[in-house]
């Protein structure tokens, strides 16, 4: 009897600080698996965000840097330009990439930097206590929209569709962590985004709809179903560019 599924070498075998049922753990594992499969562990440099995944560098067993809130793509641009032989990716949440870091995100994409972006969209600010994010759905209850988000508070920001308009962007796909099947599709998209960088294709982004059972106030399995039944209607899955 052989082992058919085991722990990736690029992922430290320690317990994470994430809540039960959080999608970050799955996303971390998928990235570690892709890094191992592409055999780029010695070349890869991750840029961690500010948000729940702020200490992602404690979990990945490869080189990582940390950026100020929202500035991951600016830091990644510098690393990639100084060390073009390295494979550089950012791992950012929706508060980091689509709110405080919108400026850096749009300009890095518009410059067509040869970077890989893993964008975790869970429609709330997790680390600070579940406040409304730009990606929060209309009607979604959060700490700062207790009656549900209303249109006067803005509409869910579709940053991936916006970035797809830019000539410098070469690959954007939106996936979800809502079932084992979707997790496998997510891994395929992450692999493509890394392969693009290796092949010098240009700016690649994977948006991952990820569950936050704690601040969606639902059990983990229900949170996965909510992604399929509600969130994926507002943020359609599939290749955007």
């Amino acid at each position, binding site marked *: *009897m*052989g*082992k*058919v*599924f*085991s*722990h990736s070498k690029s*992922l430290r*075998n320690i*317990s*994470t600080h*994430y*809540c*039960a*049922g*959080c*999608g*970050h*753990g*799955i996303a971390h*594992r998928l990235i570690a698996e892709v890094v191992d499969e592409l055999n780029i562990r010695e070349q890869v440099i991750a840029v961690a965000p500010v948000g729940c995944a702020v200490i992602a560098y404690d979990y990945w067993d490869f080189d990582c840097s940390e950026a100020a809130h929202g500035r991951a793509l600016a830091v990644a641009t510098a690393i990639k330009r100084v060390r073009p032989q390295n494979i550089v990716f950012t791992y950012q949440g929706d508060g980091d990439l689509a709110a405080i870091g919108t400026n850096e995100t749009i300009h890095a994409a518009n410059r067509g930097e040869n970077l890989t972006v893993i964008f975790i969209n869970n429609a709330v600010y997790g680390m600070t206590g579940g406040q409304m994010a730009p990606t929060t759905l209309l009607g979604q209850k959060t700490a700062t929209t207790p009656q549900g988000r209303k249109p006067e508070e803005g509409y869910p920001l579709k940053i991936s569709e916006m970035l797809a308009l830019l000539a410098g962007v070469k690959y954007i796909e939106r996936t979800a962590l809502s*079932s*084992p099947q979707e*997790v*496998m599709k997510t891994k395929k998209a992450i692999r493509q985004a890394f392969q693009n960088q290796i092949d010098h294709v240009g700016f690649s982004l994977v948006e991952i709809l990820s569950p936050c*059972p704690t601040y969606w106030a639902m*059990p*983990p*399995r229900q949170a*996965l179903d909510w992604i399929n039944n509600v969130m994926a209607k507002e943020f359609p899955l599939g290749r955007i560019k």
Partner: protein
Amino acid sequence: MAKITIDKDKCKGCLLCVSFCPKGLIKAAKGLNKRGVAAVEFKDTGECLGCTLCAVICPDCCVEVYK
């Protein structure tokens, strides 16, 4: 013939593996683990398919699959 092993002390008891196991072989364990949560346990009845769905969905990499 397949089986899984579960790292009970890393398990946070989210029960996602329980909900996706096609044979219903994973159950919430009685008692608490080191973290103070009710982890899951594998009931080896010889029916495990080794499909890896539990391992793929586990957010905490607690599951290893043998086939």
